[in-house]
Protein backbone atom coordinates (compact mmCIF):
# COMPACT_ATOMS: atom_id res chain seq x y z
CA UNK A 1 0.00 0.00 0.00
CA UNK A 2 3.03 2.27 0.03
CA UNK A 3 2.02 3.66 -3.36
CA UNK A 4 -1.00 5.22 -1.68
CA UNK A 5 1.17 7.38 0.56
CA UNK A 6 3.03 9.90 -1.59
CA UNK A 7 6.37 11.42 -0.64
CA UNK A 8 6.57 14.72 1.21
CA UNK A 9 6.41 17.84 -0.92
CA UNK A 10 8.39 20.99 -0.13
CA UNK A 11 5.25 23.10 0.11
CA UNK A 12 3.61 20.82 2.67
CA UNK A 13 2.79 22.96 5.68
CA UNK A 14 2.60 19.98 8.03
CA UNK A 15 5.22 17.27 7.62
CA UNK A 16 5.57 13.98 9.40
CA UNK A 17 8.63 11.97 8.48
CA UNK A 18 8.76 8.40 9.83
CA UNK A 19 7.18 9.52 13.08
CA UNK A 20 6.30 6.96 15.74
CA UNK A 21 4.76 7.58 19.11
CA UNK A 22 4.42 5.04 21.88
CA UNK A 23 2.35 5.15 25.06
CA UNK A 24 4.47 2.79 27.12
CA UNK A 25 3.90 -0.49 25.27
CA UNK A 26 0.92 0.71 23.22
CA UNK A 27 1.75 2.23 19.86
CA UNK A 28 -0.05 5.47 19.03
CA UNK A 29 1.25 6.02 15.53
CA UNK A 30 3.71 3.88 13.65
CA UNK A 31 6.29 5.21 11.17
CA UNK A 32 3.96 7.86 9.81
CA UNK A 33 5.15 9.86 6.82
CA UNK A 34 2.61 12.42 5.76
CA UNK A 35 2.54 15.86 4.19
CA UNK A 36 -0.41 18.20 4.40
CA UNK A 37 -0.65 21.30 2.24
CA UNK A 38 -3.02 24.28 2.04
CA UNK A 39 -6.74 23.63 1.69
CA UNK A 40 -8.98 21.32 3.66
CA UNK A 41 -7.68 17.83 4.42
CA UNK A 42 -9.68 15.19 6.22
CA UNK A 43 -7.89 12.90 8.65
CA UNK A 44 -10.02 9.83 8.81
CA UNK A 45 -9.96 6.75 10.90
CA UNK A 46 -11.94 4.79 13.42
CA UNK A 47 -11.71 5.56 17.14
CA UNK A 48 -8.29 4.61 18.44
CA UNK A 49 -6.68 4.79 14.99
CA UNK A 50 -4.18 7.49 15.99
CA UNK A 51 -5.88 10.69 14.80
CA UNK A 52 -5.70 12.53 18.11
CA UNK A 53 -2.13 11.36 18.66
CA UNK A 54 -1.17 12.91 15.33
CA UNK A 55 -2.94 16.13 16.22
CA UNK A 56 -1.32 16.25 19.65
CA UNK A 57 2.06 15.82 17.98
CA UNK A 58 1.28 18.64 15.54
CA UNK A 59 0.30 20.90 18.42
CA UNK A 60 3.36 20.19 20.52
CA UNK A 61 1.53 18.38 23.30
CA UNK A 62 3.42 15.19 22.56
CA UNK A 63 6.96 14.60 21.42
CA UNK A 64 7.70 12.02 18.71
CA UNK A 65 9.65 8.97 19.91
CA UNK A 66 11.21 8.53 16.48
CA UNK A 67 11.18 10.56 13.28
CA UNK A 68 10.79 14.26 12.74
CA UNK A 69 7.78 16.49 12.55
CA UNK A 70 7.42 20.07 11.44
CA UNK A 71 4.60 22.56 11.20
CA UNK A 72 5.33 25.63 9.09
CA UNK A 73 8.99 24.66 9.24
CA UNK A 74 9.06 24.60 13.04
CA UNK A 75 9.05 21.90 15.65
CA UNK A 76 5.93 22.51 17.74
CA UNK A 77 7.33 20.62 20.74
CA UNK A 78 10.01 23.20 21.45
CA UNK A 79 9.09 26.23 19.35
CA UNK A 80 5.95 27.89 20.63
CA UNK A 81 6.12 30.65 17.99
CA UNK A 82 4.45 28.16 15.64
CA UNK A 83 1.22 28.84 17.54
CA UNK A 84 1.11 32.34 16.08
CA UNK A 85 0.17 30.60 12.86
CA UNK A 86 -1.76 27.69 14.29
CA UNK A 87 -5.19 27.36 15.84
CA UNK A 88 -6.20 24.17 17.57
CA UNK A 89 -9.61 22.88 18.51
CA UNK A 90 -9.09 19.93 20.87
CA UNK A 91 -11.43 16.96 21.01
CA UNK A 92 -11.76 17.17 24.80
CA UNK A 93 -14.85 18.94 26.06
CA UNK A 94 -12.98 21.05 28.58
CA UNK A 95 -13.42 24.68 29.60
CA UNK A 96 -13.19 27.12 32.45
CA UNK A 97 -16.83 26.41 33.20
CA UNK A 98 -17.58 29.53 35.25
CA UNK A 99 -16.59 31.81 32.39
CA UNK A 100 -18.90 32.75 29.59
CA UNK A 101 -17.91 32.21 25.98
CA UNK A 102 -16.89 35.82 25.54
CA UNK A 103 -14.59 35.78 28.57
CA UNK A 104 -13.11 32.47 27.48
CA UNK A 105 -12.37 33.55 23.93
CA UNK A 106 -11.02 36.91 25.11
CA UNK A 107 -8.70 35.00 27.45
CA UNK A 108 -7.47 32.94 24.50
CA UNK A 109 -6.88 36.17 22.59
CA UNK A 110 -4.89 37.60 25.48
CA UNK A 111 -2.81 34.42 25.62
CA UNK A 112 -2.19 34.83 21.91
CA UNK A 113 -0.68 38.22 22.73
CA UNK A 114 -3.46 40.68 21.91
CA UNK A 115 -4.40 43.63 24.10
CA UNK A 116 -7.64 43.53 26.07
CA UNK A 117 -9.47 45.75 23.58
CA UNK A 118 -8.18 43.88 20.54
CA UNK A 119 -8.97 40.53 22.15
CA UNK A 120 -12.52 41.68 22.84
CA UNK A 121 -13.01 42.84 19.25
CA UNK A 122 -11.59 39.64 17.83
CA UNK A 123 -13.53 37.47 20.29
CA UNK A 124 -16.83 39.03 19.29
CA UNK A 125 -15.96 38.65 15.62
CA UNK A 126 -14.86 35.07 16.10
CA UNK A 127 -17.93 34.12 18.14
CA UNK A 128 -20.20 35.71 15.53
CA UNK A 129 -18.45 33.63 12.89
CA UNK A 130 -19.50 30.43 14.65
CA UNK A 131 -23.01 31.77 15.39
CA UNK A 132 -22.41 32.19 19.10
CA UNK A 133 -22.87 35.96 19.37
CA UNK A 134 -26.33 35.60 20.91
CA UNK A 135 -25.14 33.23 23.65
CA UNK A 136 -21.70 34.58 24.44
CA UNK A 137 -22.70 36.17 27.76
CA UNK A 138 -24.04 32.94 29.22
CA UNK A 139 -21.87 30.74 31.41
CA UNK A 140 -20.23 27.88 29.54
CA UNK A 141 -21.43 25.47 32.24
CA UNK A 142 -24.95 25.73 30.82
CA UNK A 143 -24.04 25.26 27.16
CA UNK A 144 -25.15 22.38 24.97
CA UNK A 145 -22.49 20.17 23.37
CA UNK A 146 -22.90 22.02 20.10
CA UNK A 147 -22.43 25.43 21.73
CA UNK A 148 -19.32 24.19 23.46
CA UNK A 149 -17.90 22.97 20.15
CA UNK A 150 -18.59 26.35 18.58
CA UNK A 151 -16.89 28.12 21.49
CA UNK A 152 -13.78 25.98 21.04
CA UNK A 153 -13.78 26.80 17.36
CA UNK A 154 -14.09 30.51 18.09
CA UNK A 155 -11.10 30.23 20.43
CA UNK A 156 -9.11 28.47 17.71
CA UNK A 157 -9.99 31.15 15.18
CA UNK A 158 -9.38 34.25 17.31
CA UNK A 159 -5.88 34.96 16.02
CA UNK A 160 -6.83 34.23 12.40
CA UNK A 161 -4.29 31.41 12.06
CA UNK A 162 -3.07 30.10 8.72
CA UNK A 163 -3.11 26.54 10.02
CA UNK A 164 -6.12 25.06 11.74
CA UNK A 165 -5.98 21.71 13.48
CA UNK A 166 -9.51 20.63 14.30
CA UNK A 167 -9.96 17.42 16.26
CA UNK A 168 -13.45 16.02 15.71
CA UNK A 169 -14.93 19.54 15.47
CA UNK A 170 -18.34 18.38 14.34
CA UNK A 171 -19.04 16.18 17.36
CA UNK A 172 -22.22 17.19 19.08
CA UNK A 173 -23.37 19.63 16.44
CA UNK A 174 -26.90 19.37 15.10
CA UNK A 175 -27.39 19.01 11.32
CA UNK A 176 -27.76 22.75 10.85
CA UNK A 177 -24.65 23.38 12.92
CA UNK A 178 -22.72 20.79 10.93
CA UNK A 179 -23.74 22.43 7.70
CA UNK A 180 -22.65 25.86 8.99
CA UNK A 181 -19.32 24.56 10.20
CA UNK A 182 -18.63 22.62 7.01
CA UNK A 183 -19.32 25.79 5.04
CA UNK A 184 -16.94 27.70 7.32
CA UNK A 185 -14.17 25.11 6.95
CA UNK A 186 -14.57 25.13 3.17
CA UNK A 187 -14.35 28.93 3.15
CA UNK A 188 -11.19 28.81 5.26
CA UNK A 189 -9.70 26.21 2.95
CA UNK A 190 -10.57 28.23 -0.14
CA UNK A 191 -8.90 31.29 1.38
CA UNK A 192 -5.58 29.43 1.33
CA UNK A 193 -5.42 28.27 4.91
CA UNK A 194 -4.34 24.78 5.85
CA UNK A 195 -7.28 23.14 7.56
CA UNK A 196 -6.93 19.65 8.95
CA UNK A 197 -10.15 18.10 10.21
CA UNK A 198 -10.25 14.74 11.93
CA UNK A 199 -13.30 12.55 12.04
CA UNK A 200 -14.34 8.96 12.33
CA UNK A 201 -17.50 9.64 10.34
CA UNK A 202 -16.79 9.12 6.68
CA UNK A 203 -19.63 11.00 5.05
CA UNK A 204 -18.87 14.02 7.21
CA UNK A 205 -15.46 14.36 5.61
CA UNK A 206 -16.72 13.40 2.19
CA UNK A 207 -19.07 16.38 2.31
CA UNK A 208 -16.18 18.62 3.26
CA UNK A 209 -13.23 17.68 1.09
CA UNK A 210 -11.88 15.25 -1.46
CA UNK A 211 -8.38 15.49 0.04
CA UNK A 212 -7.99 12.86 2.73
CA UNK A 213 -5.53 10.87 4.78
CA UNK A 214 -6.72 7.52 6.07
CA UNK A 215 -5.25 6.21 9.30
CA UNK A 216 -5.77 2.85 10.91
CA UNK A 217 -3.90 1.14 13.76
CA UNK A 218 -1.46 4.07 13.84
CA UNK A 219 -0.50 3.78 10.18
CA UNK A 220 -1.39 6.01 7.27
CA UNK A 221 -3.13 3.70 4.81
CA UNK A 222 -3.60 6.22 2.04
CA UNK A 223 -3.39 9.92 1.30
CA UNK A 224 -4.66 12.04 -1.57
CA UNK A 225 -7.85 12.64 -3.53
CA UNK A 226 -10.60 10.14 -2.82
CA UNK A 227 -10.95 9.20 -6.51
CA UNK A 228 -7.22 8.81 -6.96
CA UNK A 229 -6.99 6.55 -3.97
CA UNK A 230 -9.90 4.54 -5.29
CA UNK A 231 -8.23 4.24 -8.68
CA UNK A 232 -5.03 3.00 -7.09
CA UNK A 233 -6.73 0.13 -5.40
CA UNK A 234 -6.11 -2.71 -7.74
CA UNK A 235 -8.27 -5.80 -8.08
CA UNK A 236 -11.13 -4.27 -6.14
CA UNK A 237 -14.44 -4.63 -7.91
CA UNK A 238 -16.40 -1.44 -8.39
CA UNK A 239 -20.16 -1.55 -8.13
CA UNK A 240 -21.99 0.38 -10.84
CA UNK A 241 -25.63 1.17 -11.29
CA UNK A 242 -26.67 1.43 -14.94
CA UNK A 243 -30.00 3.18 -15.42
CA UNK A 244 -31.61 2.03 -18.63
CA UNK A 245 -35.07 1.32 -20.07
CA UNK A 246 -33.50 -1.73 -21.81
CA UNK A 247 -32.15 -3.36 -18.73
CA UNK A 248 -32.45 -6.97 -19.91
CA UNK A 249 -30.56 -6.23 -23.12
CA UNK A 250 -27.89 -4.29 -21.21
CA UNK A 251 -27.75 -7.00 -18.57
CA UNK A 252 -27.25 -9.72 -21.16
CA UNK A 253 -24.38 -7.90 -22.78
CA UNK A 254 -22.63 -7.09 -19.52
CA UNK A 255 -23.13 -10.59 -18.13
CA UNK A 256 -21.18 -11.95 -21.06
CA UNK A 257 -18.12 -9.91 -20.16
CA UNK A 258 -15.24 -11.69 -18.40
CA UNK A 259 -14.46 -8.65 -16.28
CA UNK A 260 -17.94 -8.61 -14.72
CA UNK A 261 -18.03 -10.61 -11.53
CA UNK A 262 -21.71 -10.20 -10.66
CA UNK A 263 -24.86 -8.66 -12.01
CA UNK A 264 -28.34 -8.06 -10.62
CA UNK A 265 -31.52 -6.28 -11.59
CA UNK A 266 -32.89 -3.72 -9.22
CA UNK A 267 -36.48 -4.57 -8.38
CA UNK A 268 -38.09 -1.18 -8.18
CA UNK A 269 -36.54 0.73 -11.05
CA UNK A 270 -35.04 0.38 -14.49
CA UNK A 271 -31.50 -0.31 -13.54
CA UNK A 272 -28.83 -2.96 -13.51
CA UNK A 273 -26.28 -3.27 -10.73
CA UNK A 274 -22.99 -4.69 -11.90
CA UNK A 275 -19.65 -5.40 -10.19
CA UNK A 276 -16.48 -5.38 -12.19
CA UNK A 277 -12.74 -5.58 -11.51
CA UNK A 278 -12.14 -3.39 -14.55
CA UNK A 279 -14.89 -0.78 -14.53
CA UNK A 280 -13.37 0.99 -17.55
CA UNK A 281 -14.24 -2.07 -19.70
CA UNK A 282 -17.87 -1.72 -18.59
CA UNK A 283 -17.82 1.97 -19.52
CA UNK A 284 -16.40 1.12 -22.96
CA UNK A 285 -18.95 -1.62 -23.63
CA UNK A 286 -21.86 0.60 -22.61
CA UNK A 287 -20.53 3.47 -24.70
CA UNK A 288 -20.24 1.21 -27.75
CA UNK A 289 -23.76 -0.18 -27.20
CA UNK A 290 -25.24 3.31 -27.00
CA UNK A 291 -23.35 4.50 -30.07
CA UNK A 292 -24.50 1.43 -32.01
CA UNK A 293 -28.07 2.10 -30.80
CA UNK A 294 -28.41 -1.38 -29.27
CA UNK A 295 -29.90 0.26 -26.15
CA UNK A 296 -30.00 3.55 -24.35
CA UNK A 297 -28.43 4.41 -21.00
CA UNK A 298 -29.93 7.17 -18.85
CA UNK A 299 -27.37 7.20 -16.09
CA UNK A 300 -24.31 5.52 -14.70
CA UNK A 301 -23.40 5.75 -11.00
CA UNK A 302 -20.45 4.28 -9.16
CA UNK A 303 -22.09 3.06 -5.98
CA UNK A 304 -18.97 2.45 -3.94
CA UNK A 305 -16.63 5.09 -5.25
CA UNK A 306 -17.00 6.83 -1.95
CA UNK A 307 -14.98 7.10 1.17
CA UNK A 308 -16.80 4.36 2.97
CA UNK A 309 -15.92 1.84 0.31
CA UNK A 310 -12.35 3.07 0.00
CA UNK A 311 -11.86 2.77 3.70
CA UNK A 312 -13.36 -0.70 3.85
CA UNK A 313 -11.08 -1.90 1.06
CA UNK A 314 -7.99 -0.46 2.65
CA UNK A 315 -8.73 -1.77 6.08
CA UNK A 316 -9.47 -5.22 4.72
CA UNK A 317 -6.11 -5.24 2.98
Amino acid at each position, binding site marked *: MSTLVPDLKPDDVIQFSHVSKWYKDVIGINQVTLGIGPGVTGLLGPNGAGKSTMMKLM*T*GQLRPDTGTMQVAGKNPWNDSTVFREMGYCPD*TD*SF*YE*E*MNAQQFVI*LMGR*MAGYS*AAESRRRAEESLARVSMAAHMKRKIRGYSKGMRQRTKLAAALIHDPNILILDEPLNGLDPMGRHEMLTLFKELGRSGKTVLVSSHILHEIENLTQQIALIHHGRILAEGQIEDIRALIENQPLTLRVETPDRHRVGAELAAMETVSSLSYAEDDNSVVVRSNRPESVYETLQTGVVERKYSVDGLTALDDNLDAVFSYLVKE
Partner: protein
Amino acid sequence: MITNALSAGWTLGTHQVFATRRKWLSVIVVLLPALVALPPRLFSGSPPAFIYGQLVMTLFTAILVPFVAIFWGGAVISDEVEGKTLVYLWTRPTGRMAVLASKLVAVFFWQVLLLLAALLGVFLVLYAGRSSLTVQSELQALAWDLLGLGGGAAAYGALGFFLAALVKKPLGIGLVYIFAWDNIVNYLPGYLKMTSIRHFIMVLKSQGPSIEPKNQFTSFLAESTTTDAQAITAISVVIVVCLGFAWALLHRKEYLGDDPARSQ
Protein backbone atom coordinates in the same frame (compact mmCIF):
# COMPACT_ATOMS: atom_id res chain seq x y z
CA MET B 1 2.75 40.49 23.36
CA ILE B 2 4.24 38.78 26.41
CA THR B 3 2.66 41.30 28.79
CA ASN B 4 -0.77 40.50 27.36
CA ALA B 5 -0.17 36.79 27.85
CA LEU B 6 1.10 37.39 31.39
CA SER B 7 -1.98 39.44 32.10
CA ALA B 8 -4.08 36.51 30.86
CA GLY B 9 -2.27 34.26 33.33
CA TRP B 10 -3.02 36.74 36.10
CA THR B 11 -6.70 36.76 35.10
CA LEU B 12 -6.74 32.98 35.16
CA GLY B 13 -5.12 32.86 38.62
CA THR B 14 -7.56 35.42 39.99
CA HIS B 15 -10.44 33.53 38.41
CA GLN B 16 -9.28 30.35 40.10
CA VAL B 17 -9.16 31.93 43.55
CA PHE B 18 -12.35 33.96 43.39
CA ALA B 19 -14.61 32.83 40.56
CA THR B 20 -14.62 29.07 40.83
CA ARG B 21 -16.42 27.04 43.47
CA ARG B 22 -13.19 27.26 45.45
CA LYS B 23 -13.98 30.86 46.33
CA TRP B 24 -15.56 29.35 49.45
CA LEU B 25 -12.11 28.22 50.54
CA SER B 26 -10.98 31.84 50.26
CA VAL B 27 -13.93 32.95 52.38
CA ILE B 28 -13.10 30.31 55.00
CA VAL B 29 -9.42 31.33 55.05
CA VAL B 30 -10.40 34.91 55.88
CA LEU B 31 -13.20 34.28 58.36
CA LEU B 32 -12.23 31.10 60.20
CA PRO B 33 -9.30 32.51 62.24
CA ALA B 34 -11.36 35.48 63.47
CA LEU B 35 -14.16 33.12 64.47
CA VAL B 36 -11.69 30.86 66.27
CA ALA B 37 -10.23 33.91 68.08
CA LEU B 38 -13.63 35.05 69.31
CA PRO B 39 -14.31 32.53 72.15
CA PRO B 40 -10.89 32.95 73.86
CA ARG B 41 -11.26 36.73 73.59
CA LEU B 42 -14.69 36.61 75.21
CA PHE B 43 -14.28 33.83 77.75
CA SER B 44 -10.56 33.47 78.55
CA GLY B 45 -8.56 35.67 80.84
CA SER B 46 -5.36 35.23 78.85
CA PRO B 47 -3.72 38.37 77.46
CA PRO B 48 -4.41 39.05 73.74
CA ALA B 49 -0.71 38.66 72.83
CA PHE B 50 -0.74 35.12 74.20
CA ILE B 51 -3.94 34.14 72.37
CA TYR B 52 -2.61 35.77 69.23
CA GLY B 53 0.68 33.86 69.53
CA GLN B 54 -1.15 30.58 70.07
CA LEU B 55 -3.28 31.17 67.00
CA VAL B 56 -0.30 32.11 64.83
CA MET B 57 1.57 29.05 66.00
CA THR B 58 -1.21 26.50 65.80
CA LEU B 59 -3.84 27.66 63.37
CA PHE B 60 -1.74 29.69 60.93
CA THR B 61 1.70 28.08 61.01
CA ALA B 62 0.65 24.48 61.45
CA ILE B 63 -2.62 24.31 59.52
CA LEU B 64 -3.87 27.26 57.52
CA VAL B 65 -0.73 28.47 55.73
CA PRO B 66 0.65 25.02 54.80
CA PHE B 67 -2.70 23.68 53.70
CA VAL B 68 -3.86 26.73 51.76
CA ALA B 69 -0.48 27.30 50.12
CA ILE B 70 0.15 23.71 49.11
CA PHE B 71 -3.43 23.41 47.91
CA TRP B 72 -3.36 26.56 45.76
CA GLY B 73 0.20 26.01 44.57
CA GLY B 74 -0.72 22.54 43.35
CA ALA B 75 -4.04 23.70 41.94
CA VAL B 76 -2.25 26.08 39.56
CA ILE B 77 -1.29 23.01 37.53
CA SER B 78 -3.54 20.20 38.73
CA ASP B 79 -6.76 22.14 38.07
CA GLU B 80 -5.64 22.54 34.47
CA VAL B 81 -4.67 18.88 34.21
CA GLU B 82 -7.83 17.52 35.82
CA GLY B 83 -10.03 19.98 33.97
CA LYS B 84 -8.17 19.16 30.73
CA THR B 85 -7.71 22.86 30.08
CA LEU B 86 -3.91 22.68 30.03
CA VAL B 87 -4.16 22.27 26.27
CA TYR B 88 -5.27 25.90 25.95
CA LEU B 89 -2.17 27.09 27.83
CA TRP B 90 0.18 24.73 26.03
CA THR B 91 -0.84 25.77 22.53
CA ARG B 92 -0.26 29.51 22.79
CA PRO B 93 2.57 31.46 21.16
CA THR B 94 4.04 32.70 24.43
CA GLY B 95 5.13 29.22 25.38
CA ARG B 96 4.27 26.79 28.11
CA MET B 97 5.62 28.70 31.06
CA ALA B 98 4.63 32.36 30.69
CA VAL B 99 0.94 31.98 31.38
CA LEU B 100 1.46 29.36 34.08
CA ALA B 101 4.07 31.52 35.83
CA SER B 102 1.85 34.58 35.94
CA LYS B 103 -1.02 32.42 37.13
CA LEU B 104 1.18 31.17 39.97
CA VAL B 105 2.16 34.73 40.88
CA ALA B 106 -1.51 35.77 40.90
CA VAL B 107 -2.52 32.85 43.11
CA PHE B 108 0.35 33.58 45.51
CA PHE B 109 -0.50 37.28 45.63
CA TRP B 110 -4.16 36.66 46.49
CA GLN B 111 -3.22 33.94 48.94
CA VAL B 112 -0.94 36.30 50.89
CA LEU B 113 -3.60 38.98 50.74
CA LEU B 114 -6.19 36.58 52.14
CA LEU B 115 -3.79 35.55 54.91
CA LEU B 116 -3.17 39.19 55.72
CA ALA B 117 -6.91 39.76 55.91
CA ALA B 118 -7.22 36.72 58.17
CA LEU B 119 -4.40 37.93 60.44
CA LEU B 120 -5.91 41.39 60.60
CA GLY B 121 -9.25 39.83 61.43
CA VAL B 122 -7.72 37.96 64.37
CA PHE B 123 -5.86 41.10 65.43
CA LEU B 124 -9.06 43.13 65.37
CA VAL B 125 -11.02 40.55 67.35
CA LEU B 126 -8.30 40.33 70.01
CA TYR B 127 -7.31 43.98 70.27
CA ALA B 128 -10.59 45.80 69.60
CA GLY B 129 -11.26 48.09 72.54
CA ARG B 130 -7.69 47.84 73.92
CA SER B 131 -5.49 50.87 74.45
CA SER B 132 -3.81 52.23 71.32
CA LEU B 133 -0.41 51.82 73.05
CA THR B 134 -0.90 48.06 73.35
CA VAL B 135 -2.05 47.85 69.75
CA GLN B 136 0.95 49.84 68.48
CA SER B 137 3.43 47.59 70.26
CA GLU B 138 1.85 44.52 68.69
CA LEU B 139 1.74 45.91 65.16
CA GLN B 140 5.42 45.14 64.69
CA ALA B 141 4.74 41.54 65.67
CA LEU B 142 1.96 41.44 63.13
CA ALA B 143 4.33 42.64 60.39
CA TRP B 144 6.91 39.99 61.30
CA ASP B 145 4.27 37.31 61.37
CA LEU B 146 3.07 38.33 57.98
CA LEU B 147 6.63 38.20 56.66
CA GLY B 148 7.21 34.74 58.12
CA LEU B 149 3.85 33.40 57.04
CA GLY B 150 4.18 35.01 53.59
CA GLY B 151 7.57 33.38 53.11
CA GLY B 152 6.18 30.10 54.38
CA ALA B 153 3.21 30.38 52.05
CA ALA B 154 5.56 30.96 49.12
CA ALA B 155 7.65 27.92 50.08
CA TYR B 156 4.64 25.63 50.58
CA GLY B 157 3.10 27.03 47.38
CA ALA B 158 6.25 26.28 45.42
CA LEU B 159 6.30 22.79 46.92
CA GLY B 160 2.67 22.28 45.88
CA PHE B 161 3.49 23.53 42.39
CA PHE B 162 6.42 21.12 42.13
CA LEU B 163 4.34 18.18 43.38
CA ALA B 164 1.64 19.00 40.83
CA ALA B 165 4.25 19.02 38.07
CA LEU B 166 5.49 15.66 39.34
CA VAL B 167 2.28 13.73 40.00
CA LYS B 168 -1.33 13.96 38.88
CA LYS B 169 -2.82 14.23 42.37
CA PRO B 170 -0.38 16.25 44.47
CA LEU B 171 -2.58 17.09 47.45
CA GLY B 172 -2.25 13.68 49.14
CA ILE B 173 1.55 13.86 49.23
CA GLY B 174 1.34 17.50 50.29
CA LEU B 175 -0.95 16.67 53.20
CA VAL B 176 1.34 13.88 54.39
CA TYR B 177 4.24 16.33 54.30
CA ILE B 178 2.52 19.15 56.18
CA PHE B 179 0.54 17.18 58.73
CA ALA B 180 2.89 14.26 59.35
CA TRP B 181 6.47 15.02 58.40
CA ASP B 182 6.39 18.71 59.33
CA ASN B 183 4.93 17.85 62.74
CA ILE B 184 7.23 14.98 63.57
CA VAL B 185 10.61 16.36 62.55
CA ASN B 186 10.14 19.57 64.50
CA TYR B 187 10.33 17.51 67.65
CA LEU B 188 13.29 15.41 66.64
CA PRO B 189 16.78 16.46 67.63
CA GLY B 190 19.39 16.99 64.96
CA TYR B 191 19.22 18.28 61.45
CA LEU B 192 16.05 16.55 60.27
CA LYS B 193 14.07 19.66 61.14
CA MET B 194 15.96 21.36 58.33
CA THR B 195 13.63 19.45 55.99
CA SER B 196 10.63 21.16 57.52
CA ILE B 197 9.35 24.42 56.07
CA ARG B 198 7.37 24.93 59.24
CA HIS B 199 10.58 24.95 61.25
CA PHE B 200 11.80 27.99 59.33
CA ILE B 201 8.48 29.79 59.71
CA MET B 202 8.68 29.16 63.45
CA VAL B 203 12.15 30.64 63.53
CA LEU B 204 10.81 33.79 61.89
CA LYS B 205 7.66 34.09 63.92
CA SER B 206 7.50 36.76 66.56
CA GLN B 207 5.57 35.10 69.36
CA GLY B 208 7.77 32.09 69.93
CA PRO B 209 8.69 32.14 73.60
CA SER B 210 5.14 32.21 74.92
CA ILE B 211 4.16 29.00 73.18
CA GLU B 212 7.27 26.88 73.14
CA PRO B 213 6.66 23.45 74.66
CA LYS B 214 6.61 23.66 78.40
CA ASN B 215 8.07 20.25 79.06
CA GLN B 216 11.83 20.31 79.49
CA PHE B 217 12.37 17.19 77.41
CA THR B 218 10.27 18.37 74.47
CA SER B 219 11.92 21.79 74.76
CA PHE B 220 15.25 20.06 74.38
CA LEU B 221 14.03 18.13 71.36
CA ALA B 222 12.54 21.19 69.69
CA GLU B 223 15.60 23.29 70.38
CA SER B 224 17.06 24.92 67.31
CA THR B 225 19.99 27.16 66.64
CA THR B 226 18.68 28.30 63.25
CA THR B 227 18.97 32.06 62.85
CA ASP B 228 16.55 34.39 61.08
CA ALA B 229 19.00 34.79 58.18
CA GLN B 230 19.36 31.04 57.84
CA ALA B 231 15.60 30.64 57.89
CA ILE B 232 15.13 33.27 55.19
CA THR B 233 17.86 31.64 53.11
CA ALA B 234 16.36 28.18 53.58
CA ILE B 235 12.88 29.36 52.58
CA SER B 236 14.35 31.05 49.51
CA VAL B 237 16.23 27.88 48.58
CA VAL B 238 13.06 25.79 48.92
CA ILE B 239 11.20 28.21 46.63
CA VAL B 240 13.94 28.34 44.00
CA VAL B 241 14.60 24.59 44.00
CA CYS B 242 10.92 23.61 43.87
CA LEU B 243 10.13 26.08 41.08
CA GLY B 244 13.27 25.10 39.20
CA PHE B 245 12.43 21.40 39.28
CA ALA B 246 8.81 22.13 38.42
CA TRP B 247 9.91 24.18 35.40
CA ALA B 248 12.24 21.44 34.24
CA LEU B 249 9.50 18.83 34.60
CA LEU B 250 6.91 20.92 32.80
CA HIS B 251 9.25 21.53 29.89
CA ARG B 252 9.70 17.81 29.37
CA LYS B 253 6.35 16.43 30.41
CA GLU B 254 3.65 15.24 28.04
CA TYR B 255 0.12 15.49 29.36
CA LEU B 256 -1.96 12.81 27.73
CA GLY B 257 -5.33 13.76 29.11
CA ASP B 258 -7.34 10.60 28.64
CA ASP B 259 -6.17 7.05 28.47
CA PRO B 260 -4.34 6.93 25.12
CA ALA B 261 -6.21 3.83 24.03
CA ARG B 262 -9.41 5.85 24.19
CA SER B 263 -8.12 9.27 23.24
CA GLN B 264 -6.28 8.53 20.01
